[in-house]
């Protein structure tokens, strides 16, 4: 699409009201289209301020695809082996706990997002609701949290790419997961620097394909586990020997699988009809992946004993599929795993760059960081600040540590999102007018916030140490560089 030609008229059809110089969505005009109704909030944000208006191009399906696409890579294709090893069949409970916490945060986050549909997501809410100090810690933490998450996905991607060699019968002298992950990290960063990425359409396609493969696989697996195909499975003890503690620890570990819904909020500025589509995309994607995760663990732990699953490591699901339908099943899951971890890694790199932009726009870090390259239209500094550390971290290959630090930094943000909601609802600043109101707001945000912080306590000491160090460093940076920035209520 590179011409000035008119698009065909099969596109979205808007009623041709009398042209109005005050802008397209003044809220009082006739309904603009079947798929689009005036969104007063979006109109305020996009309105031409003398420097141009902004087109919103991501619809509900696109928003869901971002959320699901970012999340599903980890929970299904990386964690089952690790989680089952730690918590046995009760790992499905761990995933359920994660889903509940994610939902408790997604609802308040939805309310905040419809009140502030701007790029930056959680950072934006917290800096405006709680002030610069909290904003700086969360903003820098979000950047690094996404960096850790992306590195984690890349190692997962590397594992699946390595599995391709195994399936092809090519023996490699070393485990190729880490080198391949690093290579993918470099490749994706370079691609995002120079490519005119048309990832939205691709992302939608990948997510739909994944959901189809997984639905088939999990349906078959569930029937098999329930004994429909006749094979007797000996039910394993549900809870692991350690009782509930390993279940909670595993919940903390696998919470990385639920980080994606916040990514929907980071592109809030691009979502059409944010008042409706943001809450639906955030809550919907958490519910969808939550169900998939719980069923996946159920199926996986029915097919193999937990200890056996743990031995398979990151690519345990390939063995599960192989045990059901042989080589074709294994290959299908390898392909699905490649796609899923690839899209998760890609989405995280892009989100990390947007996080850098968000803090740089507010002058918490030097403005240079968000400069765009006119030739490519890409923020080269921000992408470098994302891609560089990602590659370094991927090279460490510490899957569990990377995942937990990512979760740590996100959980801090989630907890503060809940605090921000409570704060804003109490203060009622004049600009705060969310189109979506979280039901039982105080209770949901209160429990969500407490649960987010509590989950951190179940992580490994090393992860807590690294996460805390990052937060302290972020606060130190704020004291050094950004004490004169006032963001609270700056909207």
């Amino acid at each position: 699409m590179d011409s000035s030609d008119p698009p065909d008229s099969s596109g979205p059809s808007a009623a041709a009201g009398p042209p109005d110089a005050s802008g397209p969505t003044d809220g009082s005009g006739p309904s603009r289209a079947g798929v689009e109704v005036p969104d007063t909030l979006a109109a305020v944000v996009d309105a031409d301020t003398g420097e141009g208006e902004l087109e919103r191009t991501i619809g509900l399906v696109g928003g869901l695809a971002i959320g699901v696409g970012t999340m599903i890579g980890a929970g299904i294709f990386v964690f089952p082996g690790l989680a089952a090893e730690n918590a046995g069949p009760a790992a499905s409970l761990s995933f359920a706990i994660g889903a509940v916490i994610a939902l408790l945060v997604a609802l308040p986050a939805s309310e905040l997002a419809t009140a502030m549909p701007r790029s930056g997501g959680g950072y934006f809410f917290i800096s405006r609701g709680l002030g610069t100090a909290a904003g700086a810690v969360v903003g820098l933490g979000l950047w690094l949290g996404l960096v850790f998450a992306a590195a984690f996905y890349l190692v997962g991607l590397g594992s699946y790419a390595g599995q391709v060699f195994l399936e092809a019968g090519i023996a490699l002298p070393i485990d190729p997961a880490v080198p391949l992950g690093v290579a993918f990290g470099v490749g994706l960063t370079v691609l995002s620097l120079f490519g005119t990425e048309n990832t939205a359409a691709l992302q939608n396609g990948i997510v739909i394909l994944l959901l189809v493969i997984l639905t088939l696989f999990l349906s078959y697996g569930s029937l098999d586990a329930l004994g429909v195909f006749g094979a007797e499975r000996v039910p394993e003890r549900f809870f692991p020997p350690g009782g509930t503690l390993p279940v909670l620890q595993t919940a903390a570990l696998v919470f990385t699988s639920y980080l994606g819904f916040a990514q929907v909020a980071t592109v809030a500025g691009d979502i059409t009809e944010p008042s409706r589509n943001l809450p639906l995309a955030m809550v919907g994607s958490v519910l969808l992946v939550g169900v998939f995760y719980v069923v996946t663990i159920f199926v996986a732990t029915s097919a193999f004993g937990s200890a056996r699953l743990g031995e398979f490591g990151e690519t345990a699901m390939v063995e599960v599929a192989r045990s059901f339908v042989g080589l074709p099943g294994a290959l299908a899951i390898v392909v699905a795993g490649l796609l899923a971890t690839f899209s998760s890694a890609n989405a995280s790199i892009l989100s990390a760059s947007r996080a850098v932009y968000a803090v740089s726009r507010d002058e918490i870090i030097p403005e240079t960081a968000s400069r765009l390259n006119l030739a490519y239209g890409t923020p080269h500094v921000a992408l470098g600040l994302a891609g560089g550390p990602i590659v370094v971290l991927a090279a460490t290959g510490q899957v569990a540590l990377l995942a937990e630090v990512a979760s740590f930094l996100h959980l801090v943000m989630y907890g503060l999102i809940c605090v921000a909601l409570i704060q804003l609802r109490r203060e009622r600043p004049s600009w705060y007018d969310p189109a979506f109101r979280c039901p039982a707001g105080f209770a949901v945000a209160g429990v969500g916030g407490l649960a987010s912080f509590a989950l951190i306590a179940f992580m490994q000491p090393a992860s807590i140490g690294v996460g805390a160090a990052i937060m302290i460093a972020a606060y130190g940076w704020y004291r050094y560089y950004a004490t004169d920035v006032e963001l609270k209520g700056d909207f």
Partner: protein
Amino acid sequence: MTDTPTEDGEEQTETGDRQATGEQPGPETPTGEQPEPDAPTDVGRPSVLVPLKLLEGESLPNGVPELLANARVVLLGYHVIPEQTATEQAREQFGEKAMSKLDEFADSLAAAGADVETRLVFTHDEATTIDRLIYEYECLAVLVPNSAERVDSVLVALRGTVGVGRNTRLVAGLFADAGVDVTLYHALNEGESPDDGESFLNGVRADLVERGVAADRIETLVEDADAPLDAIAGRAESHDAVVMGETDPSVTTFVFGMPSEQVAERFLGPVLVVQRERPEE
């Protein structure tokens, strides 16, 4: 100029302004000769969308102000941003610069006599933006902005009676008093005789005359062309601008691009692509 009731009862709000500018089209009421009864809402100047990729160095080509002197020009400056970049980010950095460029172009259009509205949009998707603005301003046509040295003669390629009223409104609105030669061109469809073609074009000519175009400035040309697009592009070389319709997207469209695009690429002059009637919601 027409009292045909509009389907939705909406009137262009700025009718009064347009009349004040003195570019009123003829006072005639359309008669039964008008091939299409669908051409009613626009009273006054035809709206033409001029999309420019400002930040990629596209500027207002020579000849365009002259070509659109009688139009209500919706000047759209836009910048397509890759998906990895927030639109806000681009606006912050490039908005001011783009806006001042856009104002400059708007001034030169206005100096030539056009009514101008400017819009600057940062978008991830060009098609969404252009389509939205076509709707918003009920644009009759979109300009493929190529340059012309002068505007003395225009080739109007007509495919058939469907939607032809929009073509005549555009041509009459832009060129009725401009001293421009208009050549109506029709490539015969399958099973159509040259006489059919002639009578079709004569009907259009009569409609144009009624709308204020001088009869001696209108020529008609019917041709049996194997490849209509090649023929149009070829004929266009002896003219300064082309008016043609948009086509339904089809397989060939996907492979070779929109017909108007193909013509514009070979002709290298300005092409006004008349938009189909957009369905009301």
